Each structure stands twice: as structure tokens, then as C-alpha cells.
């Protein structure tokens, strides 16, 4: 019996809104990136102003590009494609708009807080606890809207793109919640629940899977919709896409520890990360080839259609970075590439190529359709494509070069057995590469500005279609397979909630298997008796270190290599970080490692160096921090910080919060007096004093005697 057709509508307004903010935040994020790129070559561009200094702008760049540009790009894709794939309207217009405005509000508050130095100090998860909670709530709103839509669908089969979005939703929720466990002690500040090795493992389990489930799986969904749309042919192999889906979400979740090779993490967890990373090549390449092969027999179209050109380069970049990723997680490769600009090149091939170009292609395809018109200029779009591609090449090659040459210079010894190069020499050597990279970024963003003009003219030439209508029969209660043959997998293909549950189990088990050792590590972390909690002044200094984003350029992890031990000192032990909430191992050495910096230089060296690094290290590219010399140290929260640390298990004696301030003052006086001897006159209550206290403590606990620290009785 033929079912009656039902009429429903597609809301284009929300799609248009998400498309506009995708472009807007894309430009903001890229401009921030351009600024920090040139800051590394010309430190004067930090402007001696806290809010424009590298350590604060860099998290704005990463957060804006990931969560604002790509985030809104995901929502644009989902709000357009999901109802059309399911032949229904979105579940709730109100929820759509709440989702939209709340997400933009989160982005604005993220930018404001990060520039103000309010940060949790964990890369790619820098936002503080109130914003973390807001993100959770918005994610729930998005989830209700998405699943509501799925449940009222008129198409029984869930297209593979929808699976990727379901997995994205559930996994991002899990990652965000687990990694954001933190103990607030004021309106805008908290400490990570985990410490040291545990914190590092949770953070990189999160960090790696944020790449997987925020930058990859939702965009794979976008790819599986827009590539067939733009080429007007179905995906090359639907069978392949099913294997692609399950293999990708299963394997990705295990691979996080490859960010922590040669660190204090147990060996077997490191090997697990490597093995799964290598296996990841298969599903990733299956996805890439599936996308590219969709265009088989349509290569003549690719020559003419800039949209398809964007998609081809996006998929190629996806293939390149997913080949490179496993290579970088091999220990022998990682020993060279880790902490260098190679990593930066790697992520930017993904971000500029895969995410950027896929977004641009989707925008060029989508906007004319939303406005019932043709693209204003194909030629401009083609120019954008070539300028953008050149930008990616000019970005990536200098960074690979810089990474490789810096790593080789770090590791080079003279025949006498001493290190051949000072760290600073390696920095100066790659400065030209930093300039070239900035030029690459400038080209890339110029292309985006061409796109803005092109899309603006397109919008002006058309008339917005706020609503489109569709017709389809409602689903029958009982399902009769169209071709008589049904298998259990097609059972799950029709059932969104079960799909969600199975995805959650899949990523959950992978997650638990990876996280369990984190918590069992405690028994594997040899406690070092001489490692003591930070003094109150050091703790305040540490918070300044986090506020200024020092961890973005300095690692605190000396790996057990000959050159690192020769350059920095004794390699880092897991037991040394047990009071580090959050850990500050870092992931990049734009400057030298700081784990053994304590006691290496006199206090006055640090004082002058923070005022102007070039006074002490001519040719340094580090920003000036003059405000640290002027700002009074805010001690209003010191007691609360001590109490928070006690709750997290740091063994300060009972009631120490009441004595902390007196100890802090005493230590300030000692350092200020020492500074005065070297003609660095400062009041004891300045922020610089606290920072010096922290830096001088770093890595000294395992040395025989304590240098100038106030011991806690």
C-alpha cells in the first residue's frame, strides 16, 4: 500500500548563520595565527603588552581555528545535510538557535579569557571551568536536536555521514568531560584533578582524540555528503565507507600515547599507542581513497570546477597527514621530530589542507544554493584555490626544514664529545624559515579574503531562500527489506540510539584501556622522598608561568637521550611531577627545556631576562615581559590555592593555608635581597619574584641540597 506523502521544510536560516560565522571566525583565527607566526621571527611584534604576547595569542589561534572555524563548519554541514539525508525538518528551531548563539558566546568568552591570561594550562583544553560547563550544556543541546531529528526521520537507513556525526557527538562528550575534571577555587580558576604523568596521559588521550573526533570524523561526514553532491555521483564504495567508519573510530581512540614517547609513561602504553597509530593508516587511507575515487571518470570536471579542486587537495592533505601521523609515532622518528616545528607542519597540513579546503569547497557549493543563484566568479574561486595551495606549500616546507635541521643541530656533538651548538644558534638558524612560513600564512589568508569577496558578491546577486520544502512518506512501523536479504549490520544502520550505544562502548573501551594504566601508574611511579610540594610563592609563580603560556614554547621534560642530558641535565623522572596540577611538559621547544633550569642561573639573570631576553641572550626570539616587573603579586587566593591542592592530595600540613602567606612573604624577602645584591632593585611583592622562585625550584628536588627554597615545616 502506498503511504501518503508528508510535507516538511528545511530551515536554511540556521545554515546561513553558521556559514557566516564559520567565515568570520576563520579569519579571526587565521589572523591570530599570522600574528604569532611573525612574532616568532620578529619579537618586537609582541608589543610588550600582555594581551598581544605570543603565549596568550597562541591559544586564541588554536581555539579559534579548532572550535570556532572548524566547529561552526561542522554545524553548518550538519544543519544542512542531516535533515536532507533523513527527509525531515530539524527537531527544534529554538534549540538550533540556542545552539548557535550559545556557541558564539562561548567563542567570545574564550577569546576574552584567554587574552586575559585565564587558562587551565592544558593545550587545546585551555578554557576555564565555567566555560567548560557551558560547552557541555551546548553540546547536550546539539545532541538533543540531532537525535530528535534522527528519531523523526522519514528515511529508514542512516547514511554513513550520519554515523560519523553520531560518533563525533558521543566521543567529544566523553573526551571533554573526562579531560575537564578540575577543582575550582575561584570564579575563573581551577586546578586539574590529575597530576603529572596521569594528567599528561589524560590530556593527550583527549588532545589526540580531539583531532580525531573534532577535526576528522565530523569532517569525514561532511566529505561523504558534499563530495558526492558537488560531483553529482555517489561515493565510490559504500561498503568501504562502512569498514572505514568502524575501523576509524575504534583505532583512533587507542593512539593517544604516541604524544608521550620517551617520557615517563610506562613502556607498554607507549608501544600500544605506536601500534594503533600505525594501524590507523588503513582506515584513514580507505577514507581518502573512497573520497578521491568518487571522482573517477569525472576528472574532466575537476579541471573546470574549483569546488572539486578544493576537495581533491583537502583529501590529498588528509591522506598526507594521516600517513605522516603514524610515521611520527614510530619511536625512531619521534626522537627526531618531537618538540620541533615538524609537528607544527604536520598539524597545519591537516588544518589548512583538510579542514580549511574542505570548508571552502563546501561554502562555495552551499552559498549559491542558499541564495538561489550562481557563484559570482569561478575564476576568483580558482585563484583562491591556487593561492591557498601555494600558501600551504610555503607554510609546510619551511616548517619541515626547520624541524629537521633543528633536531639535527640539537643532537650534534663535536669530536671532543661536547654539544656542537648552543640552543640559541639553532633558533637563529631557523629564523628565515619562520619568515617564509609567515609568508605562506599570508598567502593562505589572502585567498580566504578573495573567497569573502566572491561569496559577498554571490549573496548580493541572489535572493535568500529561507525555507525549502520536501515530501516523503512517513516510515512504516514494520520494516520490509527492499531486496529480501537483511543482515544484522543493516539492523544497526537503521537504529540511531543503538548506533550511539555501540559507538560509545567502542570508544569507551578503547578509552578505558588507555586510561586504566594512567591510574594504575601511581603504583608504577616510584615516589621520590626528596620531592616536596611547592612553596606558596612557587605555587603563585607557577600560576604566572601558566597564565603567560610559557608551556607553549618551553617543555619540562628532559628525555633520556645523550644530547638532552648533556644540554639540560638529568633526565626527567615520573616521580618528580606528582604535585604538578596541571602538568607542564609542553609539546614544543621553541625555547629550551626548563625542567632543570632551577639553580642554573642567578636570580638577577632571570630578572633581566624577563625584562628583555635579548639583554642576556642576544638574538633570542622570546617576548619581553615588562609587566611582571611592575605588577604586584595578587595573594588574595593563595590560601584557597593551598586548600585546593590539599583536596587534590598534595601533602601540605593541616591548617597550612593560614600560614602560607607568612611563608610567601619570607621567601619574597630572600629573593628580593638577593636581587638587590646584583643591582636589580625590586619590591619583594612583584610578580617577577614569584616567577623567579618557581623557575629556581624547577627540577631541583632530586639534587642533593635544596637551593634557597623555604621548606614547609
Amino acid at each position, binding site marked *: 500500500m502506498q503511504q501518503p506523502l508528508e510535507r516538511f521544510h528545511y530551515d536554511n536560516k540556521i545554515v546561513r548563520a553558521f556559514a557566516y560565522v564559520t567565515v568570520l571566525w576563520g579569519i579571526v583565527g587565521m589572523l591570530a595565527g599570522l600574528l604569532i607566526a611573525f612574532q616568532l621571527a620578529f619579537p618586537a611584534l609582541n608589543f610588550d603588552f600582555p594581551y598581544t604576547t605570543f603565549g596568550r595569542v597562541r591559544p586564541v589561534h588554536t581555539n579559534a581555528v579548532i572550535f570556532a572555524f572548524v566547529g561552526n563548519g561542522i554545524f553548518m554541514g550538519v544543519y544542512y545535510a542531516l535533515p*536532507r539525508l533523513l527527509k525531515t525538518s530539524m527537531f527544534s528551531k529554538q534549540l538550533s538557535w540556542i545552539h548557535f548563539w550559545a556557541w558564539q558566546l562561548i567563542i567570545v568568552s574564550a577569546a576574552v579569557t584567554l587574552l586575559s591570561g585565564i587558562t587551565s594550562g592544558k593545550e587545546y583544553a585551555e578554557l576555564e571551568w565555567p566555560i567548560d560547563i557551558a560547552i557541555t550544556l551546548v553540546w547536550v543541546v546539539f545532541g538533543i536536536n540531532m537525535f530528535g531529528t534522527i528519531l523523526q526521520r522519514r528515511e529508514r537507513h542512516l*547514511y554513513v555521514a550520519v554515523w560519523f556525526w553520531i560518533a563525533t557527538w558521543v566521543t567529544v562528550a566523553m573526551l571533554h568531560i573526562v579531560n575537564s575534571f578540575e577543582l575550582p577555587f575561584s570564579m575563573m580558576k581551577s586546578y586539574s584533578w590529575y597530576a603529572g604523568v596521569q594528567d599528561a596521559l589524560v590530556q593527550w588521550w583527549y588532545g589526540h582524540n580531539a583531532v580525531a573526533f573534532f577535526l576528522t570524523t565530523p569532517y569525514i561526514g561532511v566529505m*561523504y555528503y558534499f563530495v*558526492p*553532491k558537488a560531483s553529482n555521483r555517489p561515493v565510490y564504495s559504500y561498503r*568501504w565507507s562502512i569498514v572505514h567508519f*568502524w575501523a576509524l573510530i575504534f583505532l583512533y581512540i587507542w593512539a593517544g600515547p604516541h604524544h608521550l614517547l620517551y617520557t615517563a609513561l610506562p613502556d607498554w602504553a607507549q608501544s600500544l599507542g605506536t601500534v594503533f597509530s600505525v594501524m590507523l593508516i588503513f582506515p584513514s587511507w580507505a577514507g581518502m581513497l573512497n573520497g578521491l575515487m568518487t571522482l573517477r571518470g569525472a576528472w574532466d570536471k575537476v579541471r573546470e570546477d574549483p569546488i572539486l579542486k578544493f576537495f581533491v587537495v583537502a583529501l590529498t592533505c588528509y591522506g598526507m597527514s594521516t600517513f605522516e601521523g603514524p610515521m611520527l609515532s614510530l619511536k625512531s622518528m619521534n626522537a627526531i621530530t618531537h618538540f620541533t616545528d615538524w609537528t607544527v607542519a604536520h598539524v597545519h597540513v591537516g588544518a589548512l589542507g583538510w579542514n580549511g579546503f574542505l570548508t571552502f569547497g563546501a561554502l562555495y557549493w552551499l552559498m549559491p544554493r542558499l541564495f538561489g543563484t550562481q557563484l559570482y566568479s569561478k575564476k576568483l574561486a580558482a585563484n583562491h584555490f591556487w593561492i591557498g595551495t601555494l600558501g600551504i606549500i610555503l607554510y609546510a616546507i619551511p616548517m619541515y626544514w626547520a624541524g629537521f635541521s633543528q633536531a639535527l643541530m640539537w643532537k650534534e656533538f663535536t669530536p671532543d664529545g661536547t654539544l656542537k651548538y648552543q640552543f640559541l644558534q639553532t633558533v637563529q638558524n631557523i629564523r628565515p624559515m619562520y619568515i617564509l612560513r609567515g609568508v605562506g600564512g599570508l598567502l593562505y589568508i589572502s585567498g580566504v579574503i578573495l573567497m569573502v569577496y566572491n561569496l559577498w558578491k554571490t549573496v548580493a546577486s541572489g535572493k535568500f531562500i529561507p525555507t525549502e520544502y520536501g515530501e516523503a512518506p512517513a516510515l512504516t512501523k514494520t520494516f520490509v527489506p527492499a531486496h529480501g536479504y537483511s543482515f544484522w549490520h543493516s539492523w544497526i544502520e537503521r537504529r540511531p540510539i543503538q548506533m550511539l550505544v555501540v559507538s560509545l562502548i567502542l570508544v569507551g573501551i578503547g578509552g578505558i584501556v588507555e586510561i*586504566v594504566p594512567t*591510574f*594504575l601508574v601511581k603504583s608504577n611511579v616510584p615516589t621520590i622522598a626528596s620531592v616536596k610540594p611547592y612553596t606558596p610563592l612557587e605555587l603563585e609563580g607557577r600560576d604566572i608561568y601558566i597564565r603567560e603560556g610559557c608551556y607553549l614554547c618551553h617543555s619540562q621534560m628532559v628525555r633520556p637521550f645523550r644530547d638532552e642530558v648533556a644540554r639540560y641535565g638529568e633526565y626527567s623522572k615520573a616521580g618528580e611531577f606528582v604535585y604538578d596540577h596541571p602538568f607542564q611538559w609542553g609539546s614544543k621547544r621553541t625555547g629550551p627545556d626548563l625542567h632543570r633550569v632551577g639553580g642554573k642561573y642567578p636570580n638577577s639573570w632571570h630578572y633581566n631576562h624577563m625584562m628583555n631576553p635579548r639583554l642576556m641572550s642576544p638574538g633570542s626570539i622570546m617576548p619581553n615581559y615588562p609587566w611582571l616587573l611592575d605588577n604586584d603579586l595578587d595573594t588574595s587566593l593563595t590560601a584557597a590555592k593551598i586548600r585546593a591542592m590539599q583536596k587534590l592530595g598534595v601533602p601540605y600540613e593541616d591548617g597550612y593555608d593560614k600560614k602560607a602567606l607568612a611563608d610567601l612573604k619570607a621567601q619574597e624577602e630572600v629573593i628580593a635581597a638577593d636581587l638587590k645584591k646584583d643591582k636589580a632593585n625590586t619590591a619583594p611583592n612583584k610578580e617577577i619574584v614569584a616567577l623567579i622562585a618557581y623557575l629556581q625550584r624547577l627540577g631541583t628536588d632530586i639534587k642533593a641540597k635544596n637551593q634557597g627554597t623555604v621548606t614547609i615545616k
Partner: protein
Amino acid sequence: MKFINYLESITGVGIYPLISLIIFVVFFVIVTLYVFTADKKTMERDSQLPLEQ
């Protein structure tokens, strides 16, 4: 973290990763088998979904 105590108290907790690995390898073998034996017409129809309006 308190739940470490629960994890540690499970006898033979080390076998859990192995079991889960086996479960998923088996799962994939079955998915792969299904995928390559699945009905061609259904696959074609499903892959056409984005192209319908």
C-alpha cells in the same frame, strides 16, 4: 582518583585489554565479511541518499 582502588582489586585486570582487543578484531572480521557479502542493490540505494532531494 578513588576508583583506582576498584581497578586494582580486580583479579587479573590485565586480561581486560586483551579480551576487548579480541572482541573488536572479531567484530571487524564480521563487519568486513558482511560488507563484502551485502546486497548490491541495497548498497547502491544507500549510497544514492545524498543525491536525492
